[in-house]
């Protein structure tokens, strides 16, 4: 009896000792907490990879929301097939502040900026690691930060300018900075970065940001601000690197086998497969309802080129298009796919495949089961040349400008323009080339027209449904440049924001 007593008491006391503070201090099984992170260079590199990862979102730089929903549908050269409410709000120019695409683009940009800020601040403060490696990490993060700010300022105007990491105790009611301040930040970041990065990466680093990419983005930034001399200077600095050229064959720029080629200054990297490191570019461009052996099974043809855009290509005497870019990137009724010779578009293209009868095939190169590994070209050399040409033209160096334009035309198999064109004719020619060159890429459409104040005239002349757009009842389209509304969701959480003119929250 006593024995039972004693063992019982003993066990009970033992159990009482089970408590101590260590018992209550746990670490998560699958994440790191702050004290355990950013200790060495490989942490910094992993964090930089995390910054690159923010580019892959559809609302960031994967040529979906920007290239299709905004650039080319708003300019009217592409037709939106689904009748999705949020896309209609964009291309009908209704542009309500509740639009979910604009909200996602805004939010994705700040996620990228936030990660870049963390990397820049933490790496600057790191003790370990070689200077050169650390500088390269910081420079790449600065480029991505500049790229996202470029996105924000060209769409929305001045936005809150955040360059330090924020935490739970920061004041998050941040007002908008002026567009000038944002541009200045972009220029600072890119100018610092371009000197710290190599001109070429090799081996496992191919796809990273180069000094040329920094110069290219500077070229675009200066052009937007109409700093034409700076455009000329930075372009020539880029040409001196002798790294980038125009590829002789247009279609080869986009082929998956030819990724990161000499024309690509910067593209977002993807890989096919179930890892979710692929993109939806094939699904969104291939014709919905076409045989799965060519599309891979899921195809939605969300946007298709419009008839009037196709008709704008240069033709020969018999009406056949001579612009090689058409034959390299588009298929129409009765035409054979550029890579899959067994696939021929029917003469009567079903309305489900394409409203206009045309399909854009830059990204759809083979049947794709899950996600496509085609890299999304963000900036390529052709754009730099055309920007350079525009700046030369503005500085009254029109002949030199036309020479650059002709390089693009040569590649497209078109006749050279005479060197005697006037300044306005040259500008028109530059914009004409952009329109044919960059379909479904994040440039050459709405944004370029908008920055030069050409958008309203363009859509009046070109968009067939222009009368139904009721442009005159939309005062927000009368500003120069046209700005998108600050998203309602952003204002819900940050009351320090002010809305762009003529929009309400």
């Amino acid at each position, binding site marked *: 009896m006593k024995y039972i007593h004693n063992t019982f008491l003993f066990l009970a006391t033992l159990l009482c000792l089970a408590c101590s503070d260590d018992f209550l201090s746990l670490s998560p099984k699958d994440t790191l907490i702050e004290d355990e992170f950013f200790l060495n260079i490989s942490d910094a590199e992993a964090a930089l990879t995390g910054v690159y*990862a923010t580019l892959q979102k559809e609302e960031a730089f994967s040529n979906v929301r920007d290239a299709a929903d905004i650039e080319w549908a708003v300019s009217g050269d592409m037709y939106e097939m689904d009748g999705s409410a949020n896309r209609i709000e964009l291309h009908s120019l209704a542009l309500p502040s509740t639009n979910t695409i604009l909200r996602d683009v805004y939010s994705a940009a700040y996620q990228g900026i936030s990660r870049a800020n963390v990397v820049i601040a933490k790496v600057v403060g790191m003790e370990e690691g070689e200077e050169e490696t650390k500088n390269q990490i910081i420079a790449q993060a600065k480029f991505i930060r500049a790229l996202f700010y470029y996105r924000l300022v060209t769409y929305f105007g001045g936005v809150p300018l955040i360059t330090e990491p924020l935490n739970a105790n920061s004041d998050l009611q941040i007002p908008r900075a002026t567009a000038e301040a944002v541009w200045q930040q972009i220029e600072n970041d890119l100018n610092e970065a371009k000197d710290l990065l190599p001109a070429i990466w090799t081996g496992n680093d191919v796809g990273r940001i180069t000094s040329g990419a920094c110069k290219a983005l500077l070229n675009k930034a200066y052009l937007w601000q109409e700093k034409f001399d700076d455009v000329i200077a930075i372009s020539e600095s880029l040409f001196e690197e002798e790294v980038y050229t125009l590829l002789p064959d247009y279609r080869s720029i986009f082929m998956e086998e030819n990724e990161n080629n000499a024309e690509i200054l910067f593209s977002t990297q993807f890989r096919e497969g179930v890892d979710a490191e692929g993109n939806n570019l094939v699904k969104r461009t291939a014709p919905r309802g076409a045989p799965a052996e060519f599309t891979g099974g*899921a195809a939605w043809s969300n946007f298709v080129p419009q008839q009037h855009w196709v008709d704008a290509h240069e033709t020969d005497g018999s009406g056949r298009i001579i612009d090689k870019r058409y034959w390299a990137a588009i298929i129409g009724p009765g035409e054979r796919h550029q890579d899959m010779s067994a696939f021929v578009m029917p003469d009567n293209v079903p309305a489900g495949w394409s409203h206009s009868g045309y399909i854009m095939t830059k990204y759809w190169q083979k049947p794709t089961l899950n996600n496509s590994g085609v890299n999304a070209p963000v900036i390529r050399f052709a754009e730099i040349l055309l920007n350079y040409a525009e700046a030369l033209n503005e500085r009254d160096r029109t002949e030199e400008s036309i020479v650059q334009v002709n390089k693009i035309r040569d590649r497209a198999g078109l006749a050279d323009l005479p060197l005697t064109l006037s300044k306005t004719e040259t500008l028109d020619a530059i914009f004409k080339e952009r329109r044919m060159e960059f379909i479904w890429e994040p440039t050459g459409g709405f944004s370029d027209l908008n920055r030069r104040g050409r958008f309203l005239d363009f859509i009046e002349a070109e968009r067939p449904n222009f009368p139904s757009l009721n442009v005159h009842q939309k005062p927000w389209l009368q500003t120069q440049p046209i700005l998108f509304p600050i998203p309602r969701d952003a204002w819900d959480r940050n009351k320090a924001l002010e809305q762009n003119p003529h929009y309400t929250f």
Partner: protein
Amino acid sequence: MDTSGQPISGVTVAAKDGRSLGLTNKEGIFEVVGVNIGDTLSFSYIGYVPNDMLISNLETLHVVMTTQQGNIDEVVVVGYGTQRRSEMTGSISSVKSSDLEKVAASSFTSAIQGKVPGVTINQTTGAPGGASSVRIRGVGTTGGNQPLYVIDGFPVGGSNIAINGSTDNIDGMSIVNPNDIESIEILKDAAAASIYGARAANGVILITTKRGKEGVTSADLHAYTGFQNLWRQPKFLNAEQFTTLANELYQNSNMATNPEWEKPGSFGQGTNWIDEVFRTAPMYNVDLSLTGGNQKIRNALSLGYRDQQGTLMETWNKRYTGRANVDLTATDRLNFGGSLAFSYIQGKGQRNEDFRLGIFNLAQQFYPTLGREDVVSGSSAFYSTQGDNPYLRAKSMENYLNNLRLYGNAFGEFEIVDGLKFKSSIGLDFISNRGTAWQPKVQRGFYSNPQAVLSERQEQGLNWLIENTLSYNKTFDSHNISLIVGQTAQKNTNDWISITAREFQNETIRVINTSSESERRGTGTGSMYTLASYLGRANYSFDNKYLFSASIRRDGSSNFGPSYKWGNFPSISAGWNISEESFFNADGAINSLKVRASWGQLGNDAIGAFGYSSTFGLGRVADNYILGTDQRLITGAGMIRPGNSDLKWETSEQWNFGVDATFLNRGGYLTAEYYVKDTRDMLVSLPVSLEAGFESAPSVNGGRIRNSGFELLLGYGGGNEFQYDVSVNLSTLKNEVLSLGAGNPISGPVVGFTSMNSSYTEVGLPIGYFRGYVVEGIYQSDEEVDKTFQPNASAGDFKFRDVNGDNVLSDEDRVMLGSPWPKLTYGMNIDLSYKNFDLNLMFQGVSGNDIFHVNKFSTYPIKYFGGSGVINASADVLDRWTPENGGNTVPILKYTDLNGNYANLSSFYIEDGSYLRLRNFTLGYTLPQGLFENTNMLKRLRVYTSIQNLFTFTKYSGFDPEIGDTNPLASGVDNGVYPMPRTYMFGVKVGF
């Protein structure tokens, strides 16, 4: 016997003059001599209403006794002990097994719906075994708001069980077979619940299972079977109506109509997809229980099997349960005991509440012009390319669950000296959860799945708990003292792995090994939680008149950061048994009267783990990138959420005032209470500015919410040959957000692919209310439209109200349209018995709540807003506005909704969700005792028939007004919730 046919032993039989004539024996049988026809016998026993019966024949007299609900001598289970109801100062509601038995359900949460004032229970889905959301005294937090469940003293994880790939969740408490439950106590106020400290802020539910009793041996078999079907089917357009309206829609939009639908008259009725997808579903349930015991050992064993099909095709639930409870009296000072129970649940579920591909949603949208096995093959200009045939889809997708739960505890109790006891107990809870989701490779019209995919998930968890308590009870003179101190430690661990495999050569063999090796991907992780506590409580009563109680609990939780590791949760309460006073007239109408009051603080530690530290994710899809000439995957890292080192628990401070009374010879009882519950330091994941770029927002303790209300329970029973017992309960709730800290109002999550938020939370109004525009009517002509106010409107569109009068339609014109929280919940229970028949009616209702009928976004416009094409609609759309017919309720049918008739959250979507249900109707018959006198085996036999949800009165236009959700920021949202069925049952109870 009692009202459910169980015999009662020890009932005193007395003559009219009070002379005792004997007692009933174990079988409830009595014998008296020396009485005549016309005499009256009186029967009395503690806990039952005294019964006087007239002798009508000298052979047999059948006597039924009804329980006294407000029995002040009844023993109530409280946290870490028991108390007599007359001594209680806290607010505790009890439900006994006899009440639980009346509603046949797989989980007791449905059985107590509408029975307990202050407790609001809503089914979140009508799927078999479907989960309930249980809220005690309102909603005090935006986070976890379900109560703490304690089974036989052991806190058990009660979270709902999800079926991999489906939205049909199974109720977490269905692991306990209701047939095994002796009683349920709901601890509502701080005095009762604060002994559970940091987990008690949402209330505590104590479940006590049946244990063996000394000298009672019984074996019972209870079996019932039945079938369920939809009690209401709102109408949808038939094929002719659909094609007519679809054509009208395209014509209104100046678009070509579908040549296939040129002749609406030729289509006739077409297919009724609700009929195709719903069916009458059978169910069976068998429970066997055995108890026995003597002075040394007592035990109770039980087994149960339940098989319930769902009214929606290809959904079902099977459950096997078993339990063994043992109590051992080793010596007069040493006791041991233990229990072990298992539950094995298998289920098949479907995906619902999804506008694009939910089965129930598709059944409301799919084309009546198509037959049961047809697929969509027309132009995407007319047909939605995102949907699927619901019948074929439900048949082809398989989502299974196998959930094994094994839990038990063991204790030893030693009486050191008289009144001083030491008790040590250990509990274990083991869970193994296996989910399988399969989808074949398929091309059904526009829907295609290019690779067959199998997803297998295995989850395992083990929780252990150790408790040591020292208690002291002493009564001397008129003083009664009861003290308890204790220490507990608990650890929960949980791990899971999941594999997704694609591309199967042979789809009949569905295991990971037969998939394509390069297409397999795995994920997995785990979590842990620990809690350490100290507790103490003191009860003191003087002369059973003046009652005092105080308790404190100190909890340290692994969820708390280093700055605030331990929290203290005290409470005090007092009561006065007025009826014990000498000045109180005990022979009057009121037999007992007590007033009581309590105050205390409870905590909520469900604040997520590691919120105090910034966390970085490694190697997730959102962190990885591709680089290199061979395009390699590079693992990356990114911050998930910045930390808040000041993070601490939420505190709920409660006041409670109550009155308990019994009256009219203990036949009637009353409990009335008033409470105020303030939650402060409420965790808010503040809607952080988008510009901060956080992947997840940090949590801060910023908010304060107040819940307050009245509760009333009133009942009366009595009768002789004809027995009756009626009880009514009602409770009111007022919920108000007092503060959100420095934060802005919080918008609830967006519903599906709409751009509407499910709720809005701001200071001064209830949490999670519905906010939007007010629809004044429909513009009848283009001239009526105010183009400055609504530039995109034209004839047939909704006219919104300009609330602030500035002639601009903006956020300022959005107002409170309703709230999901009922202002009044009530129930009524009527038990009648006459001779061998018994009848039970149970009503349950809510009032003052609204439902966000967001399903209309999908079932009214005819145009499919997730993409192109049109879909079927509710028959209510026949009232749409046309230039000829006008109309003021449904807008003009159009392809593009430029005015935002459907895109905007407005009063169009908010409906009154009040309802009154006849939840249960049961008619039973107990075979006369006499039939069994000569048998050795059979002692009792009762048969009954029962209908659940016989009537529902409601103004709601959807399938069912019971829309529950465990997320308080998305409650009362009907986006195609699997509707509740009406159930018809027939059952038998046999006693051996």
